[in-house]
């Protein structure tokens, strides 16, 4: 599952400096994702998180993500 999320994020953020997915509980449904990408520069946190949600729309809708934490930054 972590690999699927990372692939979706890499596809949505092809120029990202960093994409990380941590399975917080080991159960495969509580994740902490981190995306570092220059395109976040100038966007509000709300807009940044919306981009991440958009990338993960599939697993969010089908219920395979039970809990999601998001960290976004424009530079490392």
């Amino acid at each position, binding site marked *: 599952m972590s690999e699927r999320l990372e692939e979706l994020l890499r596809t949505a953020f092809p120029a990202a400096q960093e994409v990380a997915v941590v399975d917080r509980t080991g159960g495969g449904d509580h994740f902490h994702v981190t995306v570092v990408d220059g395109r976040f520069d100038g966007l509000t*946190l*709300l807009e940044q*998180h*919306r981009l991440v*949600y958009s990338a993960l729309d599939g697993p*969010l809708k089908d219920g395979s993500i039970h*809990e*999601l*934490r*998001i960290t976004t930054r424009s530079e490392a």
Partner: protein
Amino acid sequence: MSELRDRIQQTIETEPVVAFVKGTHEQAFCGNSERAMGALRAVGASFTAVDVLPDPAIRQELSALSNWPTIPQVFVAGELVGGADIVQELAASGELEAKLTEKLGDSWRRPGAERTVEVTGGGGGLRLVPGA
């Protein structure tokens, strides 16, 4: 627009600070809901919680209104601020207090003034959760 969606919209518009959570202000049933309410408490903000658990339709209608897929969701003066991560980050940086003051003046500074309301059930309007 459904009656439920109307009630949710009305709650967002009339409550100065509202947190849609899994659980109540007294007991959250989700780590992220607890983190969001904890961040509001950390800055001493009064808030109203709405429990989304009694009816899955609450969450569906809320997400349709806000275009935000997850719970919790925190609104200030009718505007979505974000989920647990954003509210926590803004609280830590001081931006949450700045936003609250910008939108609400000083009226939000009422530490411990918390309640939970329901948006479901027959009859119009909000009602307080018994015992809350």
